[in-house]
C-alpha cells in the first residue's frame, strides 16, 4: 500500500474501526462490571456514602504522605506520565481539532518538550517495573503490552513531527495507526482503568463515606 | 493598490535569524575554500524559505561593495559585490522581471560577465567591418 493510501486508510476506515472497537469494548467492560451488582449496605450510615464516593473520585489523585515518603520517584513518575499524556493528547492543536474540542492549545515546542518528558517517564516506569522486586512479582505480559501501546503513539508522533527516520506522511500514518492499536487494545488491557478508576474510587469512597472514614 | 493590500502581513524575524546565521557561516566556509584552493562556490538563496525579514537581515549583514554589474540578457541580471570582496550577489531576472536565480557566488568575478573567446573573435570581425564601412564612406 502506497503511503498516501495508508494514511487515508488510517484516517478513515481504520480509525472508524478502531474507535468502534474501543467504544464497543469499553461498554462491554462496563456492563460486565455493573452486572455483577452490589448488595445495598444495611448498616446504619454514619455519614453520606454519596458525598464520600464523589470525594474519593478526586481525593485519590493525591498520594498519602506515608507511601509517598517510601516511593516518591514512582509516584512522581506516575504524575509526570499522566499529566504528560493528558497535555499531549488534549493540548496539541491537531489533537484538539481531532477531538473537536474548544481549547486554546499549547505551542508545538511546549508539546514537544512534554512529549519527550512523557517518553522518558515511560522508560523510567519500565525500569522500575523491571528492577523493583514487587513490580517484578506482580507484572504480567499485559503490563508490558500496555506499556508498549502507550509508548508507540508518543514515539511515532515525536518522530513524525521531527521527520525522523521516515517521511512525515508515512510516520503520520504509523502514528495514527499506533493510536488505533491503543484504541483497539485499551478495553482489553489494564488501560480500562482510564474509565474504571472512577467506578473503583466511587465504590470504595461510598463505603468509606458511609463509615465516616477518610478515603 | 487592491483590497489584498489591506490584509495585514506581519513579518516575523525572530526564529528565522537562525537561518541567516547558518547562511553566513556557509559563506565563510565557501570563501575560505576559494582563498585556499581556488574553488568557486555558490549558494542558492531562492530554494531557501527566507522571509522578507530574513532577506533584509542577510543583505544588511553582507553589505554593499564597490562593484555592481548590470546585464541585459533576456531580462535584467545584476551581479552585486558585497562588502566582502569575492562574495557576490547574483540575481537573474527573466523578461517578466521575475527573479529566476538568486544566489551568492564566491569567486573573484562571476563567470557570466566574461565574454566568450568566440564572441570576442566575432566581435573583432564585426568591428573591422564597421570601421571599413566608416572608411569607405
Amino acid at each position, binding site marked *: 500500500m502506497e503511503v498516501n493510501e495508508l494514511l487515508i486508510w488510517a484516517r478513515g476506515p481504520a480509525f472508524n474501526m478502531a474507535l468502534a472497537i474501543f467504544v464497543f469494548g469499553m461498554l462491554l467492560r462496563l456492563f460486565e462490571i455493573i452486572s455483577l451488582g452490589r448488595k445495598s449496605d444495611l448498616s446504619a450510615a454514619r455519614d453520606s456514602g454519596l458525598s464520600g464516593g464523589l470525594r474519593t473520585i478526586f481525593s485519590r489523585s493525591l498520594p498519602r504522605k*506515608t507511601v509517598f515518603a517510601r516511593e516518591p520517584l514512582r509516584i512522581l513518575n506516575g504524575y509526570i506520565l499522566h499529566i504528560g499524556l493528558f497535555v499531549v493528547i488534549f493540548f496539541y492543536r491537531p489533537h484538539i481539532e481531532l477531538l473537536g474540542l474548544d481549547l486554546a492549545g499549547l505551542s508545538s515546542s511546549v508539546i514537544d518538550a512534554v512529549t519527550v518528558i512523557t517518553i522518558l517517564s515511560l522508560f523510567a516506569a519500565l525500569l522500575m517495573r523491571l528492577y523493583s522486586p514487587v513490580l517484578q512479582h506482580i507484572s504480567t505480559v499485559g503490563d508490558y503490552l500496555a506499556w508498549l501501546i502507550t509508548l508507540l503513539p508518543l514515539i511515532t508522533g515525536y518522530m513524525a513531527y521531527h521527520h525522523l527516520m521516515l517521511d512525515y506522511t508515512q510516520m503520520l500514518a504509523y502514528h495514527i495507526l499506533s493510536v488505533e492499536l491503543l484504541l483497539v487494545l485499551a478495553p482489553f488491557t489494564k488501560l480500562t482503568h482510564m474509565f474504571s478508576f472512577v467506578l473503583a474510587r466511587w465504590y470504595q469512597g461510598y463505603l468509606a463515606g458511609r463509615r465516616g472514614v477518610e478515603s | 493598490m487592491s483590497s489584498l493590500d489591506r490584509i495585514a502581513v506581519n513579518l516575523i524575524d525572530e526564529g528565522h535569524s537562525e537561518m541567516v546565521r547558518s547562511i553566513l557561516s556557509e559563506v565563510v566556509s565557501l570563501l575560505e575554500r576559494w582563498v585556499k584552493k581556488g574553488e568557486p562556490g555558490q549558494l542558492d538563496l531562492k530554494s531557501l524559505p527566507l522571509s522578507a525579514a530574513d532577506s533584509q537581515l542577510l543583505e544588511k549583514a553582507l553589505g554593499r561593495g564597490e562593484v555592481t554589474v548590470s546585464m541585459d540578457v533576456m531580462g535584467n541580471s545584476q551581479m552585486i559585490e558585497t562588502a566582502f570582496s569575492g562574495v557576490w550577489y547574483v540575481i537573474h531576472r527573466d523578461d517578466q522581471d521575475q527573479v529566476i536565480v538568486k544566489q551568492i557566488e564566491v569567486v573573484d568575478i562571476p563567470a557570466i560577465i566574461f565574454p566568450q573567446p568566440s564572441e570576442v573573435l566575432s566581435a573583432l570581425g564585426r568591428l573591422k567591418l564597421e570601421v571599413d564601412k566608416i572608411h569607405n564612406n
Partner: protein
Amino acid sequence: MSKPSIKKGIDFIKAQIDAPVASFFSSCVHCGLCAEACLFYTESGDPKYTPINKVEPMRRIWEQEYTMLGKLKSALGLTKPVDEETFKKWETMVYDGCSLCGRCSVVCPVGNDISGMVRKIREGFAAAGYAPPDLIGATQRAVEIGSPMGVKLPAVKAQLRHLEEDTGLKVTLDEKGAEYMVLLSSMEIMNFPEYLEAIARIMKQAGKTWTIASTAFEATNSGIQIGVSDLAKVIVSRIVDAAEELGVKTVISPECGHAYTAVRWEGPNLIGRPYKFEVKHILEVLDEFTKAGLIRTEGMEESRLTYHDPCQIARKGGIVEEPRRLLNQIASNFVEMSDAGAMNWCCSGGGGVSANERAEEIKLTAFNRKKSQLDALKVDTLVTACANCRLTLEEGLEHNGMDIPVVGLTEMVAEHLVEEESVS
C-alpha cells in the same frame, strides 16, 4: 453439608465477586504501591505479600468467569487456572500475611479496596478447606461454646462477682429495658478484667442503665476473621436477638477492633436487615458522655504516652478524633506516633493473625514496624482501644525486650473519673 473442595472454594469466591470487585480488578495497573502500605511486605521485604497479589486467585476467577475476554483466553488456554496448588500457595498470604488492616485500600491510586477483597477471598479459602487450623478451632469454639477462647457464661459471672466484691458495683445480667447492652471480648474477660470495672464505674457515674446479655456477652466474631459469613451471621445473630429481646437502645462494642466491624458494619448485612438498636464503640460512648457533661475527669497522666489506633476502629471505623479528645483531657504528655490516625500502622495481629499460631513468625517480623515507630517516640506508656492490639503489642514488646506498658483507654479514663457520691 458437603466436604470442603476446590470447586466449592471457587464457587464461594464467584459468589463474592460483585461490581466493586470487578471495577477494582479492571482498574489495577500493577503499580505496586499497595505493597508500600503493607507491613507484611515492608517488614519482610517479600514481594509475595504485595496486597494485590494476595487476591490474585480471585482476580483469575473474576477474569475467567465474568469477562468475555477471560472466557476467550481460557478457551485458548491463556489463563492460569485456580486449582489445589493455588489454594495451597495462597493460603498463608490470605490469612497469615494479612491483618485486614486496610492500609492498602487507602493508598491505592485507583481506589481499589484490596483488604475488602482479602476479606471476601477468605470465604472461598475457608470453603475449600484452606483456612488455618487455629482459626477453624476458634470459629468452632465461637459457634459451639459461644466464645473463640472458650469462655463460658460462668466465667463472666465469676468476673461480675469479683467486680461486686471489689467495688460494690452490681451488674444485672439480662436486664430488660436497660439503655445499654455491653459486649465484651474474650480477652477482656480473661486477660483484661479492668475493662469491666471501668465500664461499671463510668456507667454508674453517667447514670446510665446497662446490662450484659447472658446469651450474647461475647463481641468477637471469628466468622468474620476466618471469612465464613454463614457462621459470622450465627454469631452476630446472638447479639441482635439478645439486644432486641432486651429492648436496649444501644449496644456497646468493646475495645476490640474486628468486633466493632462485625457488629457495627457487617452485622446488618449478615442478617439481611437493619438493626432495631444502635451500635456504638465504647470510645464513642465515652466521648458522648464527656461532651454531655455526664462524666468528668480529674488529674493528668504525666508519663509520656502515645495512642495506637486500632485499624478497625480508626481507619475502617472512623473513630479517630474521639480517643484524642479523651486522651487530651487526662494526659499532659500525649504524643502522636508517625502516621497516626487513619493511616496508623497495624499492630500486626489483626484479622485473625494473632489467633493463628502458624503466623507467629511473620507476625513478629511485621511487628518491627510498630517497634520502629515506638523506638522513634520513646514513650513510657502505650494506650490503645482494642484488646487484640493490646495483646499483640504486649507480646511484640516483650519479644523485643521493650518495657512499655500497654493500657486500654477506657480503663485510663475510668482511673481519672471524678466519682461523685450518687444522689440516690
